[in-house]
């Protein structure tokens, strides 16, 4: 190692990986993907992976992706819940990779709920 810049470069490269190792805290935005058998069958896995990739690509800090079991409405899977600190939980249904990208861009980054994919009473 001939310079401090090299050290800093390694540190920056490792940062995203290390973030995963902080337990989810109250200050974190959480994206929870339903990953029970029903969710996986409906395509939750690519959705989960899309979220992870988008967060890494956009280098978002304090956003954690976790899984949950069956959320109870199997016909609406893949379902995704978004918890932004201090705000009501938002539940998206029938999410695919494209919608996942939109959720990251509009909801997580810009704070706008995408109402057309949100669960409704009907």
């Amino acid at each position, binding site marked *: 190692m001939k*310079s*401090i810049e090299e050290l800093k470069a390694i*540190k920056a*490269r490792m940062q995203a990986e*290390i973030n995963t190792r902080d337990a*989810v805290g109250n200050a974190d935005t959480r994206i929870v993907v339903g990953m*029970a058998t029903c969710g996986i069958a409906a395509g939750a896995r690519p959705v989960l992976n899309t979220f992870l990739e988008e967060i890494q690509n956009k280098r978002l800090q304090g956003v*954690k992706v*976790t899984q949950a079991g069956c959320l109870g409405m199997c016909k609406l899977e893949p379902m995704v819940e978004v918890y932004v600190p201090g705000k009501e939980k938002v539940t998206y249904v029938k999410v695919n990779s494209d919608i996942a990208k939109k959720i990251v861009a509009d909801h997580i980054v810009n704070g706008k709920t995408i109402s057309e994919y949100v669960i409704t009473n009907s």
Partner: protein
Amino acid sequence: MIRNHILVCGGTGCTSGKSKSILEKINNLIVENNLSGEVQTVMTGCFGLCALGPVVVVYPEGAFYSQVKESDVDEIISEHIIKGRIVKRLLYQETVKEGGDGVSSLNDTSFYKKQMRLALKNCGVINPENIDEYIAYDGYSALAKVLTEMTPQEVIDVIKTSGLRGRGGAGFPTGNKWQFAHDVLGDTKYVCCNADEGDPGAFMDRSVLEGDPHAVIEAMAIAGYAIGSNQGYVYIRAEYPIAVERLDIAIKQAKEYGLLGENIFGTDFSFDIEIRLGAGAFVCGEETALMTSIEGNRGEPRPRPPFPAVKGLFQKPTILNNVETYANIAQIILKGADWFRSIGTEKSKGTKVFAVGGKIQNTGLVEVPMGTTLRTIIEDIGGGIPNGKKFKAAQTGGPSGGCIPASHLDIAIDYENLLAIGSMMGSGGLIVMDEDTCMVDIAKFFLEFTVEESCGKCTPCRIGTKRLYELLEKVTKGKATEATLQEMEKLCYYIKDNSLCGLGQTAPNPVLSTLRYFKDEYLAHVNDKRCPAAVCKDLVSYSITDKCVGCTLCARKCPVSAITGKVKEKHMLDKEKCIKCGVCFENCKFKAISRG
């Protein structure tokens, strides 16, 4: 992209609980389930809660699985990793959230709440075999700062101001030690690390080296820069194979990255480290004996002065610090002397790691700020004494330390306070004893250790400890009088005053401190020929009373068939055959066994 990290403890405790096969099985299942790109496994150092090992932690959920068996791995993968359902039955009990999903934070559990992890900050967090992870947690930033922004004297000043004292036991101010070596003129100087942890029951240094070896390497390089040395030696016992292996890997990685070697960070400073294995002699933890051993000679101490800072290894100026001392250095450089000074008591700054063992619920590795009371460590963090037994004494400082009775449980632990009550900080072994422990027997146990480990160079230690042991044996056999106790005490002070090195000078401490706080137990042995804890076999006898209903349990449990009798008739105990193991006494449901 990785969504889950599975951390498996690879400390010695969990490894003996088969954590390596657990890790292997997790890795196999990850491949089988095509999760390689999503889930990463990490083998870490010690989490501290050794009593509940093997430990597996899954992030980002922060699920702390304890006492995991190989057969549990399937469930963790299929439930938690694939379906996202935390396996509640495997969670550390205190982290289970009542009536909800998820887990409560590990930092809120009674074991971790009152701890402050500085020396252990990376243990159980990073993979010790991956230098990148160490760098991610600010690793080698302190070395960079020192080499590019500070003069050697400025480095020494920071360490001096911080108030850091040697964690090996004696508590000598680290900054002063560095200053002495810095001030001595000489082309060649050495930086040594004492990893020859030899106290029975102590495993702090081993855990630091297993969990965070780069912290020691970085600190040694900083010390090298401060005193003007280009060569370091780590003296570590061969009985620590995992620590040796990880240290070896860490040194190789540091060399590959140019963090050891020539012209580090493009400066004029060069530094290299070599490992020297010790054969496990206790005396080699003494600084002059340790250096003699590194030189390739038989590990024996020599008189001081000259002190190592003037004439040490190979007759050159040398500093020798303990593993835990080094583990604090980089953080002091990065966060500043004032930050470190703000932790601890007036004369003892920072934290101290203790290896807590013996009769305690949470056996494990604990790091607390100096000034924490013994009661907090034993009752709150340690979870108290198991099986509803009563606390009797805590032993700190190993064979060089003393026993602390219940009346001193509320003293704030620091170097001075422990010395004042006849014990010492020592390297940090903390053995808890309950009412079933005989204090005379404990003193005999530690003395037996020093008798065996005395190197034999000086007479007071070689012969004195042996004679002292024989006197103790007389007490435990009921052949002593009160005059024997006086003779013992006199001999203790003689050994302390006349021995060459720390081993002999402190060897009588276990005897002196038990004589001081548990005199009544000695007197019971001497005058009444009775061992109150029923440990000393020559003073105990068992018999069966009329309460016996003839249930036959004792006869079946007796390992030497010393008990005979018919069903529903009073049993008989053959005192000739009896080995006084006490199994009948513990098992009898009718309290029909008398012990006296």
